[in-house]
């Protein structure tokens, strides 16, 4: 009777443990966040309500939240595509810069009819992100250099190189004039239409949602998606099964780079209207965090990105109206990732083994 009850309990726990884990992580993060805010001499409730009103308090606020949700979804998807198939693409940030710069170039150097122009710019952005991802992919496939290192390093190269290109485009003389290096604005035909007047909420949200839907569709319904997933879950198995692992690896890298580049394009054409050096400000890393919390699920990314957008937009408002540093929110976001990715079962088993308390009879069911 006791055994049956404990078995039922465990089965229940297994199913619900994931949800419980998220809830506990969220609660822990909230507690720590409250502590941090109190430490800065502010009332946590007031800070939290400032985030809430700053993100969802009105039409303008919601518009700006949407503006931040867009890049979060797209970088999150770039990360999901890579991580789901076991490719450690940490170069999303760099691919965003190249995509963004190329989209800006196409936006003010080329003249095309309205709808065609913006699509063309996005495509160019995506392709440039893809090309930039080709470098670490080739280095990995032909020289066996770990992509973790190459993609990480290429981020810095991308940031500085696009900055340098910007200087070239606008001429060296003007570089001293302003502290923000930026290209001339793109043509109106290349801009993504604004959805909510007076905000930066733009049609990029449709691109972002389309990316989610397409990726989810590929993984669920196509043979290619089946292979991509098997390669990610067990590379040797796929290879023995006859999957062309090299080609799959390459295509994962390129798709991830394409999505990142597309994100750069959307940022430039939707929010900035021109290429601004260092505009991304760690969007790529946001994407990696989001995909980790979403456990590489496309629709999970959509959900987490909404939370992320709220926090991003709300943090600015919070800093304005309270004495709390905006970076507190970044800290909280990082802690959330940490709490969600911890393997609690292992830790539990470790401590149980350490102190050997037999009173609680729970085995590590494997």
């Amino acid at each position, binding site marked *: 009777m006791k*055994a049956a009850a*404990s*078995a039922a309990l*465990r*089965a229940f726990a*297994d199913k619900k443990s994931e949800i419980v884990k998220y809830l506990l992580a969220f609660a822990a993060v909230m507690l720590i966040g409250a502590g941090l805010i109190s430490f800065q001499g502010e009332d946590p409730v007031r800070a939290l309500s400032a985030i809430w009103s700053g993100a969802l308090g009105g039409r303008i606020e919601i518009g700006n939240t949407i503006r931040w949700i867009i890049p979060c979804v797209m970088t999150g998807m770039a990360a999901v595509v890579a991580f789901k198939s076991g490719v450690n693409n940490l170069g999303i940030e760099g691919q965003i810069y190249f995509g963004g710069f190329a989209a800006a170039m196409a936006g003010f150097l080329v003249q095309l009819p309205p709808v065609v122009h913006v699509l063309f710019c996005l495509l160019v952005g995506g392709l440039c992100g893809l090309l930039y991802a080709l470098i670490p992919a080739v280095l990995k496939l032909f020289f066996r250099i770990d992509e973790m290192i190459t993609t990480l390093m290429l981020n810095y190269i991308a940031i500085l190189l696009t900055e340098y290109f910007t200087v070239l485009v606008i001429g060296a003389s003007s570089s001293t004039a302003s502290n923000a290096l930026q290209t001339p604005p793109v043509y109106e035909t290349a801009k993504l239409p604004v959805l909510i007047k007076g905000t930066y909420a733009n049609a990029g949200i449709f691109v972002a949602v389309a990316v989610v839907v397409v990726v989810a569709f590929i993984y669920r*319904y*196509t*043979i*290619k*998606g*089946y292979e991509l*997933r*098997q390669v990610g*879950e*067990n590379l*040797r*198995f*796929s*290879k*023995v*099964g*006859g*999957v*062309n692992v090299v080609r799959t690896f390459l295509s994962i890298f390129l798709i991830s780079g394409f999505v990142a580049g597309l994100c750069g394009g959307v940022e430039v054409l939707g929010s900035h209207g021109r290429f601004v050096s260092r505009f991304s400000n760690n969007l790529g890393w946001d994407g990696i965090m989001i995909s980790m919390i979403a456990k590489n699920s496309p629709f999970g990314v959509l959900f987490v990105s909404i939370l992320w957008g709220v926090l991003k937009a709300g943090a600015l408002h919070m800093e304005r109206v309270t004495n709390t540093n905006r970076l507190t929110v970044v800290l909280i976001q990082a802690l959330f990732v940490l709490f969600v990715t911890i393997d609690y079962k292992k830790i539990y088993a470790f401590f149980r*083994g*350490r102190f*050997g308390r*037999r009173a609680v*009879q729970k*085995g*590590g*069911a*494997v």
Partner: protein
Amino acid sequence: MKSEQPVVLELRGICKNFGALAANKNIDLKVRRGTVHAIIGENGAGKSTLMNIISDIYQADAGDILLNGEKVVFKGPMDACAHGIGMVYQEFMLFPDLTVLDNIMMGFEKRRGGIFIDRKKTRAAIEEICRTYHFNIPLDEKVKGLAVAVLQQVEIVKVLYKGADIIILDEPTSVLTPQGIEGLFDAIRFLVGTGKTVLFITHKLKEVMEISDYITVLKNGEVTGNVRPDEVDEAALASLMVGREVILTAQKVEKQVAAPVLEVKGLHVRDNDGNERVKGVDLAVRAGEIVGVAGVAGSGQKELVEALFGLREAQEGRVLFEGADITSKSCRERRCLGVGYVPQDRLGEGANVEGSIWQNAIMGYHIAHGFKRKLLLDRREIDAFSGQVVKQFAVKTPTLETRVRTLSGGNIQKLIVGREFLQKNKLLIVEDPTRGIDIGAIEFIWKKIIELASEGVGILLVSHELNEVMELSDRIVVMYDGKLFDGGNAGELTEQEIGLLMAGGGTADESGRKRGA
């Protein structure tokens, strides 16, 4: 005789559940000092769980462990070890780049002043153990490069050094040649002669009859028999294990041999470290023929098979499939031509345990034999093929969406074998198809292999289980040190003669009997 020996270890009413599965149900066991006590049972019968409870890897849900008549509660595996329980696992747990001595003392170094390792004292202690128990192992050599039989002795010395009084050997003979097994048995006999107790876990009935003093049979987590080897025969033991009669002799059918499907000419293959592991192999497999490759693990079988399936580059030589050169073709191309492969590493290469049944069932099939729709997954076709695999190969699973991780080893193997066997291949490379699975599944897979050959498929069977090679093969070759030696047609050579070939034609002594007189 030995029944007067005092009980050293007793289990009372041990229960252990994993979720809804009862791995051990109310198990009672009495082990007497100075005896070899065999625990036998099919895979999934609960042998390993029980041993893990004794060595405190798991904790029992109910029941007591009594050591020398006293109830004990261990505080963890280390504590069990301190109480004199030592376990030698099937997979050796040794660091290849360290010396034998370092491996043995790891974690149990004698110390000087509390912090410094006293190598001299440690060494003296280990040498003393080797002397006492007649082990002759090279303490200063690195572990990599030593024969498996020697490694096993290292493992045994390791547990003795840690003060083991009861030694648990988990499937110890699966990696040894017949001669190596004799060596191990001599060592076991010597150990029990000095008062140590050996718990011997195996599924090989012949060995049980030879070595053990007591036999406990487990089935579905319960004890189904406590017998002594002189009271029963192998058939009786088998039926205790399985619950029905099992026929573990392959029923061969007469057939005509046709043209070769696979020909290998002068093949040389290197391993990842650049060492030549296949040194000029010639081989032919004809349609409808089962060619068995016997050999001690690590004789180059792995590299040979990988080269044959396109997973590893051949340095020299040619591989022909139906007369056409496929030496430089990829796995994918070979699969498309009609070559199937059942890899030895079931969980690493044979299956994706994170995936579902259908995801595992269509791997390879989706490329080589294909679905009508090339882009989208056709669930109807997938379900049809996966369902066929599950049904024809008796894979026990609730649904096709079930994750493979939740299946038992035997069921996973049936899934893999089914996937490869149902693909209308012309050649199948089968590597250790029955490793670590229960007798029922072994019987089933053997039957399927023979059926397939009778339908005209050429089969290359690479197995470390000599018995399996001898039962199934039409023709036997023996691999030793990267070369193949003719083992004759089925039944031409005895097990002992093939055992000699496996150990290098009887010239080199690789049997692991490196012990003193």
